[in-house]
């Protein structure tokens, strides 16, 4: 059976444009965190860029970086995960409907509000007529895209696939989240290791990957398995053990486990239960770097792939105090509000 390697990564995040996990200072997380926008002028004509949604621009940029990084020119699929798509344009179009009582509307915001705009614009940009999918399933939107790519590489006649996760912040959506306590209230502390308040620290970004069944000198890691589900059928320990056993592994074989902890005291309870199962394994986290959004776990995959390639778990991403002595098998665990669960299993290659 063919394998699934991560050969290239591209990203736009709330950190500096040239952020390096092993070298750079981490910008401290706030309650609302906007992505640092790179210069798009080499990729996108300025006239187009002005009209383009932020999510589309971040997506095209990250996709191009991932392909360039992998020296990949001919993806046979473009698969994108996004929680809300270009939500800023959804808001713009709704605002216009209300303010102008459904009159004098223009189509641009409506067109861009369609969830699949990022994947479509990347296809247009690359003139790529291949398989094109968009997944919109909350916190495992990105893992849905990853799973599809994994299956396509293993079982279908595809060699190279571009995938990514992208989400953007929009102003009224943020204020709605404030009303229901989905984000932290102004002034509350953002604490990932010992959260005391509910709510997340909202952010945005795009992270893309060039996946291939060919291993190259640039391969970061191999994706061994991906599983996503809405609810646990069994208790957490049993489900994790079953997932690992399917891959001929057990908990003791794991070198690092990454938690999608998001500084929300309510959601921490899930990770506390995970910690019971995985308390002897070196643990990592990443949303203190990326902030939290539906597809933040794509940033998590970037972090995991980079630490596998470099064989180093930087202090800044260590969640417990256990140091790994090697980094060969890595498990990523994510969820949001006790649903949209995912397990992603990676290996050194």
């Amino acid at each position, binding site marked *: 059976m063919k394998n699934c390697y991560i050969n290239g990564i591209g990203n736009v995040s709330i950190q500096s444009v040239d952020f390096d996990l092993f070298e750079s200072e981490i910008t401290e997380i706030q309650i609302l965190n906007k992505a640092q926008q790179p210069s798009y002028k080499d990729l996108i004509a300025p006239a187009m860029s002005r009209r383009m949604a932020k999510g589309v621009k971040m997506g095209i940029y990250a996709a191009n970086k991932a392909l360039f990084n992998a020296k990949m020119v001919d993806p046979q699929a*473009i698969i994108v995960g996004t*929680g*809300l*798509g270009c939500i800023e344009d*959804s808001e713009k*179009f*709704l605002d216009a*409907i*209300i303010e102008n009582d*459904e009159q004098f*509307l*223009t*189509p641009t915001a*409506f*067109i861009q*509000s*369609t*969830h*699949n*705009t990022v*994947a*479509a*614009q990347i*296809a*247009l940009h*690359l*003139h*790529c*007529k*291949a*398989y*094109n*999918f*968009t*997944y*919109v*399933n*909350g916190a*495992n*939107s990105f893992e*849905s895209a990853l799973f599809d790519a994994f*299956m396509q590489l*293993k*079982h279908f006649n595809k060699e190279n696939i571009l995938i990514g996760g992208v989400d953007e912040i929009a102003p*009224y959506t943020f*204020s*709605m*989240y404030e*009303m*229901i306590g*989905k984000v932290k209230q102004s002034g509350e502390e953002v604490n990932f290791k010992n959260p005391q308040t509910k709510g997340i620290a909202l952010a945005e970004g795009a992270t893309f990957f060039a996946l291939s069944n060919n291993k190259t000198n640039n391969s970061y890691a191999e994706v061994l398995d991906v*599983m*996503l*589900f*809405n*609810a*646990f*059928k069994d208790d957490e320990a049993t489900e994790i053990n079953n997932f690992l056993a399917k891959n001929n592994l057990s908990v003791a074989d794991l070198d690092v486990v990454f938690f999608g902890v998001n500084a929300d005291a309510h959601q921490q309870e899930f990770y506390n239960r995970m910690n019971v199962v995985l308390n002897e394994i070196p643990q990592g986290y990443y949303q203190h770097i990326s902030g939290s959004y539906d597809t933040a776990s794509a940033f998590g995959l970037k972090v995991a792939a980079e630490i596998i390639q470099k064989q180093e778990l930087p202090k800044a991403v260590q969640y417990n105090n256990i140091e790994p002595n090697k980094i060969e098998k890595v498990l990523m665990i994510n969820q949001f509000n006790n*649903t*949209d669960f995912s397990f992603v299993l990676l290996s050194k290659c």
Partner: protein
Amino acid sequence: MQKKVAITGMGIISSIGLSVEENFQSLISKKSGISNLENIQTRHASEIKVGEIKITNQELQQLLNLHEENTFTRTGLLGAYAAKKAVESAGIDDINEVRTGLISSTSVAGMDFTEKHYKKYEEHPEYQKYIQSHDAGDSSNKIANYLDLKGFVTTISTACSSAANAIMLGASMIENGYLDRVIVGGTDALSKFTINGFKTLMILSDTYNTPFDNDRKGLNLGEAAAYLVLESNEVIKKSNKKVLAYVAGYGNANDAFHQTASSENGEGAYLAMKQAFEKASILPDQIDYINVHGTATPNNDLSEGRAMSRIFNKVPKFSSTKAFTGHTLAAAAAIEAVYSVLALQNNTIFPNLNFKTPMEELNIVPETEVVQTEINHVLSNSFGFGGNCSTLIFSKS
């Protein structure tokens, strides 16, 4: 790897019926579901026709026996209704007995509620419980919970081709052993947002839509939900279950031409159909009926017609059922999958209503009457904004 995937259950709710049987009866008696808009307040109500389901959200909640405190939006309500019917029709008692998944699709998601309460949430805390219902994934999670399903759940949104891709993903997962059973389909409610959106694109007809007619004026929006139950050969062997039809082939390509318009020669559509034939290992001339995308917009029907003329030596009998249902966006490919299976089961081609004049540019004419003929393979096309083109091939059991 198994080659084709069995369909063992179907559920549907559309403007032409609340069950598979009602939809079938409407199709063979040429009873269209296109009407004047009643349930949504919009200043465009008198300028458009819609495929509206004449059941209120309260009635749907009662039909589903939902608790008063529920936060289902109309998209979720329609979806839960159709998915439940599909599961019942497949004779499933214990949904988690085998590895079961749900792959749903939507483009409107919770927008029908968001647009009602937008900017009023602050003064009306009682609406705030719907804020989280806006997300597309929320409707799928609600449907899964309503079915007590615990397992693989995801949502696809590729505009008007969404449900075709849900069926395609589900079939791929069964073929390759990732699931034993999967409920696949889509749901979309009518909304002010989409009515205004399509209006700005100037592709809404002010009267009954006329697919593949030379004088077509655009589409009618509709609302619907439909789901199929797909099961592995192993599960079917064990349960001795009746197979309704098979998903035999599928193809997905991107037109990569324009964000909202299809290319002149229908390249994406051509590629999707070509892949579907390869996957199904059948030749184009084995297709007995095409349920076309046929939205009745000038651009779609010409582009799709050209793609069909390119891939078929002789274009088979075809019709668009959108003159019955309107264009139900992310649900369209799911309701048309149900119609494709009905065509196979009943050896019946459904009429393309409202057709008068053949298109100047093409030499093809849709079927305008109910036709009884031997049908072994049906091809169904679905295309969406963003160049998303998908083709499914269904075959007789």
